[in-house]
Every structure is written in structure tokens, then in C-alpha cells.
């Protein structure tokens, strides 16, 4: 009884000790993984990265990271997926089996009888001894054929290990602390203006498709002063474009998605209204 208790206690203590040591040791490993390199990107850059551009040039997908080691890749692939019922297989199997001297007794007789006659009979009577050994070894035998088993398709998510340290941007804002204007606030603001902005149809084939407007906000999300148009231009199309943008900004207030505690960052915003991507499929000269 005592002995058992002592053993039990001892084992428990040992397990606890082991757990304490090993788990605590592992927990140290996790911390350095968190100290990832931080990219400095502005809100605009981040939005640019994530929004997707209709008229962007097609970027070629990076070259596969896997290096081809075999000289002749197509052949191994064919051999890698053997079809048991094919005749070729059978012959290959025989060839593979023949050099081995162990089952010679049935072989010569059966071969001489059935080879000239019909291959079908060979299937029924002969297969048992030679079939089993060749099926498995074939893919495994040649070491240079192992390369054929590797997935040679273009890598899809492995780009992150490519030349760029981090091709898939993570949410790292320029001053990444919590009390900053968040991306979701900016997106909400952008979404609101996109919904309200009714660009003039005359812009469809206009040369000037952009107008930038500077807005100064009050803390309650309303406009402090009238919008300041930073783009200069003239003509009916420009004025219609400019007015449509100004109208959207006016109608959208108050911008309640902008939180007062970040006021310092959004008290002045430049909005660039751009129709270039809008009328892609519509008539353009």
C-alpha cells in the first residue's frame, strides 16, 4: 500500500516535473515567432494592396520553388501510375520477374505454352507469382523517379517563401497601435462615399477622370468648412465631375464611422474621386 502510494506519488511528481519543464521550455519557443518583421505601409498603401485593380497589368506567377531534379520528367509520371490490367504491365512484370531465379519451374513451361497462343490465358493462370513483387517496387525502385512523385504544379501559396519576404500583406498600419484610425473605419468611410457618389455619365469618355477634394472635418463628423477642390480644370465635364464629388461628400455627413478619439488623424482628408476603373466595360473611345 505504502509502496504503491510512494510509487504513484513519485510517478505523478515525475510527470508534473516533466510537464513543467518541457511545456515551459516550449512556451519560450513561441515568443520569438511573434516578433515578425513589420512592414511600414500607410493606410493608403494597405488599401491599394487589398482592393485589387481592374486595369493592372497581368503579373506573371512566380516560378515554381521546387527545382526539377530529374532529367526526363514525363516518363516517370507515366510509370508512376501503373495500370494493373494493361498488357504492357504484364510483360514488364515478366521481365522483372525473369531474372530472379526463384520461381523458374512454372515460368518456362507457361511462357512457352501461352505466349504464342493468347495473352489472356496468361492473365488467369500465370499472374500470381510475378505480379505481387513488381507492383510495389516499381515506383520505389528507381531513386531518380522519386522526383516524378513530387507535385510539379505551380505553387499557389508558397509565394510567401519566395523572393519577397512577405507577399501577403498583413494588417500592419503605419503606426500600428490600437488607438489609431483603423482600416475598418477608413473602409466604412470609403464605402459610404462610393455609395453616395453618382459620377456624371459624361465622364465615360473624358480625358480627365480624377478630382481630388480636401475636406476638413469637425469632431462630430460634419464638414468644418466647404470642400476644397485641389484638382484644377475647366469645361462642362470637369465641373460636373467636381460637383458630383462635392455633392457626395456633403450628403454623406455626418461621418459617424470616424471615432472622435482618432480625430487628430481624420480632421483633414484628401479624397480622390476617380472614374477610370468604373466605365471599363462601357463605351470608351
Amino acid at each position, binding site marked *: 500500500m505504502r509502496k504503491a502510494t510512494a510509487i504513484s506519488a513519485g510517478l505523478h511528481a515525475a510527470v508534473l516535473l516533466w510537464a513543467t519543464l518541457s511545456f515551459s*521550455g516550449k512556451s*519560450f*519557443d513561441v*515568443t*520569438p515567432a511573434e*516578433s515578425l*518583421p*513589420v512592414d*511600414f505601409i500607410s493606410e*493608403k498603401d494597405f*488599401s491599394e494592396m487589398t*482592393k485589387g485593380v481592374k486595369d493592372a497589368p497581368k503579373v506573371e506567377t512566380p516560378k515554381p520553388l521546387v527545382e526539377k531534379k530529374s532529367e526526363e520528367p514525363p516518363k516517370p509520371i507515366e510509370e508512376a501510375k501503373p495500370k494493373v490490367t494493361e498488357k504492357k504491365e504484364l510483360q514488364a512484370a515478366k521481365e522483372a520477374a525473369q531474372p530472379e531465379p526463384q520461381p523458374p519451374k512454372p515460368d518456362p513451361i507457361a511462357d512457352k505454352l501461352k505466349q504464342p497462343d493468347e495473352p489472356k490465358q496468361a492473365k488467369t493462370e500465370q499472374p500470381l507469382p510475378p505480379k505481387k513483387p513488381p507492383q510495389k517496387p516499381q515506383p520505389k525502385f528507381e531513386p531518380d523517379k522519386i522526383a516524378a512523385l513530387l507535385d510539379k504544379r505551380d505553387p499557389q501559396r508558397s509565394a510567401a517563401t519566395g523572393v519577397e519576404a512577405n507577399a501577403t500583406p498583413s494588417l500592419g498600419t*503605419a503606426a500600428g497601435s490600437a488607438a489609431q*484610425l483603423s482600416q475598418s473605419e*477608413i473602409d466604412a*468611410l*470609403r464605402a459610404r*462615399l*462610393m*455609395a*453616395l*457618389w*453618382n*459620377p*456624371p*455619365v*459624361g*465622364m465615360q*469618355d*473624358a480625358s480627365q477622370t480624377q478630382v481630388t477634394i*480636401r475636406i476638413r472635418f469637425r469632431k462630430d463628423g460634419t464638414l468644418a468648412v466647404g470642400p476644397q477642390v485641389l484638382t484644377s480644370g475647366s469645361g*462642362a*465635364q*470637369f*465641373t*460636373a*465631375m467636381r*460637383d*458630383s*464629388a*462635392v*455633392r*457626395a461628400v*456633403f*450628403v454623406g455627413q455626418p461621418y459617424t464611422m470616424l471615432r472622435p478619439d482618432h480625430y*487628430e488623424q*481624420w480632421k*483633414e*482628408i*484628401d*479624397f*480622390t*474621386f*476617380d*472614374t477610370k*476603373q*468604373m466605365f471599363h466595360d*462601357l*463605351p470608351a*473611345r
Partner: protein
Amino acid sequence: MTDHSFPKISRRGLLVGAGALAAAGTRPARAVLNIDINQGNVRPMPIALPDFLTGGPTEGDTGRNVTAVITGNLQRSGLFAPINPAAFIEKIANSDKVPSFPDWRAINAEALVTGRITRQGDGRLKAEFRLWDVAAGQQLDGKQYFTTPDNWRRIAHIISDAIYERLTGEKGYFDSRIVFVDETGSKDRRVKRLAIMDQDGAAVRYLTRGDDLVLTPRFNPSTQEITYMSYGQGDPRVYLLNIETGQREIVGNFPGMTFAPRFSPDGQRVIMSLQQGGNANLFVMDLRSKQTTRLTDTPAIDTAPCYSPDGSRICFESDRGGTQQIYVMSANGGAAQRISFGEGHHSTPVWSPRGDFIAFTGQARGSFSIGVLKPDGSGERVLTQGFHNEGPTFAPNGRVLMFFRDVGQGPSLYTIDITGRNELKVPTPSYASDPAWSPLLS
């Protein structure tokens, strides 16, 4: 473990710190946030059009009528959504006073038009209007016009154009007219008369009596003349008709049938087809010198010619390749290049006044469609399709097409946006076909 990672972290920390310092050093003290708005929400703009004020009871109806015409024009363009007057909160009592914008914002109006019609001492009407941006709370446009009282409809169209251009950035098309073939009577004894009306279907006037059959009327871009094809007893011939005087003359002195006429952009020449045996070729006649020039000489049927807006090229329909297709060639003739390669036949090409598109009647798989393609043959699009659609004609700003459609009993006129949206029937007194849109009158 910690020994390895610690210096790493501190190095990164240093880098981060240095980066932050560098960024802080190069940036202005407070960087202005820049947000790109690259998508809009194209929709009809809500616009409030309270009745124009009037100086006295005699003009009472005129004010209301002018507003009604403007409202109709803007609504039919598909780009504006006039707000029901019953929703208006503020009653405009003085069109010179700045309106109470919160009242208009409350009903979601984005633009507001106020105006006044007053009779002058000399009997003329004075029409004024102001276009307000409700959101920004400012005046966008303001004009006044003088005219004779019976010309109020024209004034309404001109004001519509001013509003349209100011808000869309594009020229309007409301102050324009349509010439078309009015069809009355039973199907086998149709009386076809030339008629002219405002683009909204109002103020219809007949130009011929209906003794002869008339087809394919076309406007002269610079004068009050139309050219059309007519036949009574003899061969079908191309005529010129002065809308104001009613004077009529035959174009050219050709032995055979002439058809499918159209003016050049400067209005000085008429281009048409002349039948020669089983073939037809294109000819152009200078209206002043009466000199005719042959443009094509093929053993095929070349017809429906139309000039490009700059007058340098011609598009036409020809079956020289086996089926009816659209070809483009220099205005002086020469080699023609086929531009239509879509399914089926392509006929009746019309060049947009903006030059960016050629509209056509397409025929494939038993249905007729109205479509557009670019002058280089690319970008072919079908705008509307059905049992029978034919004869497109462009509005002066190249944004709207009118065509005629026959669903069985008789043809009617329709308009459609070049984007393929906003298809509308044009009111006509009876059946109507072969519309031709005039240039802007002013």
C-alpha cells in the same frame, strides 16, 4: 533559446525605431490622409422641379407646362429621377431667393430647379431658371430667355438641355426634332406621310399629304431641310424638302431608282444609292453645283451610306461579300474595309455624332436587333433584340438611339440608351417608322 532570440528582437526593434524616425523625419508634421474613391454608384439623380412661378394669371398654365416638359425630358433621359411634387416641403414663392436647403435635403433632392415665367411689355415671354445644388447649398446655373408665347415648349427644351449639361457634363439633346414616317390606314392600304415632332413626341406636324409613299427621311445637319425617298407613279426618287416653305425638288437626274439618301455633315452634299440593273452603287451629289460623283462600282448592292461626323469617311451596307455587312471607306471612294463580323446580317449603319460608334440593324436567327460597334469594327454590342427592330438614328449627343419596332400590327418608335438601358416608347399619333433625329436646333 532566449539568448538567441533576444539580440534578434533588439536588432529588429532598433530597425523599427530607425524606420519610424526616418518616416517621422521625412513626412510633414501631420500627413493628410488620402482616400481613393474609385467606384461610384451611377443612378438617376433625384431632382426637385417645383412649378415655375408666373407673373400673373395669364401665364399660369405656361409655368406649369414648362415645368412639365422639363420634368418629362429629364425623366425620359433615365439619368434623373424627378421627385413627386406632393413631397415638397418648401413652397417656392420667390425664385430669386435662396431656397431653404434643409427642406429639400429632407426629401433627398440632390438638385433643385426654380424658375419664373413673366410676360414682358412687348408681349414676349421671359423665362428664367436657377439650378441649385441642394447638398452643397449653392447655385449651379442660372439663365434667362426671351421668346414669343407660342414658343414656350422650345424654351422648356432649352432649359432641360442646360440642366442636363450642367449636371452630367455632356451636351443635351432635348432641343431637337424627329422626322418620321407617319402610318395610318389598314395594313394593305397604308397611307405614309412625312411628319415632324419634338424629340419628346409633342407638336407633331405633317409635311406631306400622303399621296405618295415616303421612306427614309433624313435631316440636313445645318438647314431646315430634309431629304427622303418617295414614289408615286414613277420610279422611287430621292427628294429634298424645305420644312419651312414646303418646297420640294428631286435630287439628281438619274435614269434609275435612287434611294437611301443622307446629307453630308456640312449639309452641302447628299449621298445615296442608285440602282443599276440588279446592283446598286453609291453616288454623291453636290447640292450647289449639282455635280454627281460615283463612289463605288461593284457588282453588288451598296446602300445605306452615312458620313462620319468629320465627313472624312463613309460607312455603308453591302452584300459584296455574300451577305449584308457594314463597310467603311474614304468619303472619296476607294477601297472599302469590312467592319462587321458578328453573327448574321448587318445593315442600315449610322455614324454617331460623337464619332465613337456606328449603330446598325442586325439580323440573325430570325430576329432583328439594334446594336452598336466601333468604327474599327471592335466592341460590337446588341442593345435590343426582338421580332422586328430597325432603322437606328442617333440623338445629337450620341447617347441615345431611336429606332422603330413592329410587334405585329404596325411600327412604333422607341428610344434606348447606348448602354442598352432605358428603353422607352415614343408617343406618336399613330403608327410610325423610319425616324431621323435632327441636330440640336440651337
